[in-house]
């Protein structure tokens, strides 16, 4: 079976084609990707005015499969990123 990206899942859920239960079931079966790709890099400024980009990293996770808690954690982390950072293309 293929896998859906989080963006694809969002679109199907917004359109009412999949409900939360169906999405959870697909996540449990490993049919949904766990990472959202950004087209640009979020940054904030440190005290020296240098652009820094916050990162989330599960040390030791390697190629392991995410739990639903990890997916939720990542989602909330992304919400914090949206709240506190600015997007700029080409910033590494």
């Amino acid at each position, binding site marked *: 079976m293929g896998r859906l990206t989080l963006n694809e899942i969002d679109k199907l859920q917004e359109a009412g084609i999949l409900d939360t239960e169906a999405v959870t079931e697909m996540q449990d079966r490993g*049919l949904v990707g766990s990472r959202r790709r950004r087209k640009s890099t979020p940054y904030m400024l440190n005290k020296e005015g240098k652009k820094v980009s916050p990162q989330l990293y599960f040390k030791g996770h390697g190629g392991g499969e995410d739990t639903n808690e990890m997916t939720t954690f990542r989602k909330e982390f992304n919400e914090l990123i949206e709240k506190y950072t600015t997007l700029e293309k080409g910033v590494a």
Partner: protein
Amino acid sequence: MKELGKGETYFDEKTDGYIPIPPGVYPAHAKTLEIRDRKGDGTPFANNCKVFDVTFQIADEVGTMQVPHLIRNGDNTFTQSSDTDGNPSTVNGSFLKGKHFRSNGVWITPNPNEGEGWRNRRYIEFFQGCGVDFPEQDGKKRVMEVEESDIIGMPVLVKLVNETYTNMEGEERVTMKVSDTLPWADGTKLDAAELTEDVPF
């Protein structure tokens, strides 16, 4: 020119013109299944292999989706259009309702050689995505030949992708194919009769 009769008839390029189909994931139902066991010249495929071609019909529910509005570039490729503020434009997905798309050929290999069981991986994954449950024995899936009755009318999420091919004249062409399938848990199975073409009268 003369008037067409009572009332006025208009053609609006925005709503009535050609709308390119954007690649993406759409709700659909399996409509037909064709199974081939021979090449074009009539000779059988090696090792009794068969190819399964499934046609999917995009479901009415696509009308609840907003999909990227594509416009043609000068080089015949497509790009998503933008509104006056520079935001990506979308259109309602209703124009996709009832459209048919074929899968890439899915191969089944009966009795694969030792270490070549992977040859049936795509077959199993593709049809599991169509809602087929293969029986399991000792933790292994038993590879069985899917029949029309197993999949016709099944609700499926299909991933549409652009596929490039070269035609008989050597020209490069692009067509849309179903590359992957996923179970559509909230979809409803349709009777085969609901998927047949309307008969013209």
